[in-house]
């Protein structure tokens, strides 16, 4: 999120800068174009003015001086007429001879005592280049007396003329003094900018004709680079003057060699667009404010809850208590709850596995206990002893060999899964020993399909059933009562069904029902590992759908049916079953049958007392 904010701010600033620069460039171009336009227009105005002055001079020269004799009073009259028609722009029109003597002048004013005409620039220029008209730079007219005690700033237009004096011609100088204020007004009109832009007029050598700060320049308070500007051809230039960058627009004024210079300091380009600068800055500030707020909102609703969720998951994985963070937006809360539920399920399943493993161990311990039931062993060895003492060695040998077989299969190398064939052999050996002990008071018959012997079976499931059949069934019957225990086994579809059926005392129906459910039943006789244990062990391995079924009727007998899946006995299947994996089935499906696991756990917790 911080990266997004930074990128957005950078982009916003960049875009603002680019837009401002484009706007500035456009403004600059427009300003320069505007200045060029002003310069062009002003040049035209000045040229028009100068042309009109030239025309006045031409009119006086060609229509008056050349046509009228000097001695004719009409000369001054004609001059006066021309003056009157243009007196707004003129100070005076005067005619001098070659020695600087005043011949005629309008308006009628007295000449100064000693104006020293021949040393004045306009006179010298006119006499030096008689073919041209000459425009002077602005100066104070130093020719005539003014009763108002005032002096006039003029621009002198002088030219050499031929004067007819009593029918003789001589060279003279016609002087038209233009009112400088006319030029001054034209220039003042275009110098009303407040942005620092200004225009000035100089002659071909850089002498200032008009400048908004001409007095300051003359007094030495200001400077202008007019000489350099005058040396340049017409065009637009960029220069640095007194540390300030500026654009110059230069145009020449015809007839005079003057230069009209427009000066545009760089600061004037940004004069009117200061608000644009402020707007760009304001935009950046508002964008930053908005981004900070969005950043905080997103962080508060999304980033932070995700990070907290991640931290809580990491804490759980590190072994802390599973307190998964539930917060933030609906999606993140859902995520948290799902993770919490998953971890709770994992915990529960792990507990179940631990409990099952404990139960398995307890069951196996119980089964193991039955394997080495000291009472059965003691009794059997005791029987062997009195057989040997009684000289019944063959019977003793038989008992010993059956006992050996029984113990061998009981151990089975520590496996809990054996062949059905071995389980049947174990039960045969057990029954053979019991028959001898019980002096054949009952018969045992095994009716099992040969095919089933190569399938897997939980070890020591038949012996406890046979034990119960003897102790609670046929064990107390006399030989003539015809007690019988039938062990049968077959394969039914995908299952193995083993049956132990006796015709002994039987038990009430309610008791038969309790045998596989009530763990508090105390076995009065036998190994103490009852049918409940057998049922649990079968269900632990194969699932709750399998196990024992007890059917009994008092005085009729009892039938115990064992059912489990037909799993061919191979080393791999044996290993998988002992690991709790049913070949071809998901482990979790088996573990989802909670009834069996709960029963096993309950049975294990209560224990089986002997």
């Amino acid at each position, binding site marked *: 999120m911080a990266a997004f904010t930074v990128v957005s701010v950078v982009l916003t600033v960049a875009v603002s800068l680019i837009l401002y620069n484009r706007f500035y460039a456009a403004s600059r171009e427009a300003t320069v174009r505007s200045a060029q336009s002003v310069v062009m227009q002003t040049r035209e105005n000045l040229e028009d003015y100068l042309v009109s002055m030239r025309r006045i001079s031409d009119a006086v020269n060609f229509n008056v001086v050349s046509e009228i004799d000097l001695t004719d009073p009409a000369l001054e009259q004609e001059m006066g007429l021309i003056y009157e028609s243009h007196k707004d722009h003129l100070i005076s029109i005067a005619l001098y001879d070659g020695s600087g003597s005043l011949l005629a002048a309008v308006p009628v004013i007295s000449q100064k005592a000693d104006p020293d005409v021949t040393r004045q620039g306009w006179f010298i220029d006119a006499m030096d280049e008689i073919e041209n008209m000459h425009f002077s730079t602005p100066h104070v007219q130093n020719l005539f007396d003014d009763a108002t005690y005032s002096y006039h700033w003029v621009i002198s237009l002088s030219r050499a003329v031929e004067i007819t004096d009593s029918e003789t011609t001589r060279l003279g100088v016609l002087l038209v003094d233009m009112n400088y204020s006319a030029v001054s007004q034209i220039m003042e009109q275009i110098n009303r900018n407040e942005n620092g832009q200004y225009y000035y007029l100089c002659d071909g050598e850089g002498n200032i004709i008009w400048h908004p700060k001409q007095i300051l320049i003359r007094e030495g308070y200001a400077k202008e680079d007019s000489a350099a500007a005058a040396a340049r051809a017409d065009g637009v230039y960029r220069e640095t003057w007194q540390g300030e960058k500026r654009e110059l627009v230069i145009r020449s004024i015809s007839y005079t060699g003057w230069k009209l210079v427009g000066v545009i300091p760089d600061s004037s380009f940004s004069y009117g667009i200061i608000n644009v600068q402020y707007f760009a*800055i304001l935009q950046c500030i508002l964008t930053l*404010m908005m981004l*900070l707020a969005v950043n905080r909102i997103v962080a508060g609703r999304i980033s932070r809850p995700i990070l907290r969720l991640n931290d809580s998951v990491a804490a759980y994985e590190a072994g802390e208590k599973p307190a998964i963070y539930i917060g933030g937006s609906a999606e993140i809360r859902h995520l948290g709850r799902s993770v919490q539920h998953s971890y709770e399920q994992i915990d529960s399943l792990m507990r179940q596995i631990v409990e099952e493993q404990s139960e398995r161990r307890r069951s196996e311990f119980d089964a193991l206990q039955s394997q080495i039931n000291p009472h059965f062993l003691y009794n059997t060895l005791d029987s062997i002893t009195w057989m040997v003492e009684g000289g019944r060695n063959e019977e003793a040998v038989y008992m010993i060999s059956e006992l050996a077989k029984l113990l061998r299969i009981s151990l089975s190398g520590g496996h809990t899964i054996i062949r059905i064939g071995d389980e049947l052999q174990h039960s045969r050996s057990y029954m053979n020993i019991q028959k001898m002990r019980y002096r054949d008071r009952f018969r045992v018959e095994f009716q099992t399909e040969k095919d089933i012997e190569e399938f897997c079976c939980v070890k020591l499931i038949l012996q406890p059933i046979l034990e119960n059949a003897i102790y609670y069934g046929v064990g107390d019957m006399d030989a003539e009562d015809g007690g019988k225990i039938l062990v049968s086994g077959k394969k039914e579809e995908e299952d193995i069904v083993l049956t132990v059926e006796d015709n002994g005392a039987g038990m009430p129906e309610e008791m038969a029902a309790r045998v596989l459910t009530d763990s508090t039943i105390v076995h009065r006789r036998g190994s103490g590992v009852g049918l409940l244990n057998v049922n649990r062990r079968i269900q632990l391995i194969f699932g709750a759908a399998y196990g024992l079924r007890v059917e009994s009727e008092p005085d009729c007998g009892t039938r115990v049916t064992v059912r489990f899946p037909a799993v061919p006995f191979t080393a791999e299947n044996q290993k998988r079953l002992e690991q709790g994996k049913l070949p071809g089935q998901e482990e979790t499906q088996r573990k989802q049958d909670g009834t069996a696991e709960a029963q096993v756990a309950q049975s294990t917790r209560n224990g089986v007392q002997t």
Partner: protein
Amino acid sequence: MKHDRKKDTRMLFLLAELVLGIAAAGMLAVMFSGEKETPKAAVIVSQSDSGQWSAFVAGIKQAASDRNIDVVISSTGWLTVEEERALMQQEMDSGADALIVQPAPGTGTERMLRETAGNVPVMLVGAGTAAGDAAPSFPVMMADNYAMGEALAGMIREDFAGKLDGRTVGLVSRTPDAADAADRERGFLDGMKGTGCTVQWTLRGTDEDKTEAIYAENRVDLVAALNTGDLEAAGTDAEARRIHGALVYGIASSTKALYFLDHDNVEGLVFPNGFELGYRSFAEVAEKLEHGSYRMQSGDVSFRTLRREDLFSGEDEVLFMPQ
């Protein structure tokens, strides 16, 4: 710990938003504040329409244009202290943010200026305060009056090669209460010491009607006019041949004075730079208006000595200000 960190982050966020919000509000205020009102300064000088102030007014207007400050030149005649006080009050009531004032002659000017101006910045021009008054507590822009008096004496000494034994001079100084006149007179008299020239008479506040009689009855070789008005009057008298051949010298700053110089009615002029006076005094005032904490500075403006042959040289031609 986590709670504290969360709280710190929240505070930081609020602080950042507050700072940015203030910046944005400030920017908006600047953008929509509109054009700042242009400050205004008023100029109060005696006989403001006379030619002696042409250059001064040109300097004032140039500086006002450069600094983008409005300026009002009050139209006045001869001002008394009371009249000047009323005019100052009027201009301040009209919105003047600063005043440029030529102190009216007479005692009590300093106190009047202090009491009237209040917090409005005041720049004195031409002179400090009246002779005998307290030292000015306002900044003053003026030419060195004593030095001008000395320079005037110097011109006379130069023209006569220092040989003025037996020569007489008449002093014309019709505004003796003005501090500038007193300093000029002192400078002139000090400058003339040891020349052998004696002061025959001094015209102070004399009716003009009696001037001709004084000229006729007390002929002098030289007339020294110590201010523009007196020099113009002497020049007029010289033009009318009423001063009986006395050579006129003076301290003046008007086109009319230049006219008299141009027409040999005046032999020599000490010409204070009126343009510089106006420009620099207004520049100080402008600086004060732009930077409120700025302390206005007093200053000396330049003057030059003029003779007829100098008048139309490029450098001195600038003295001919448009009327």
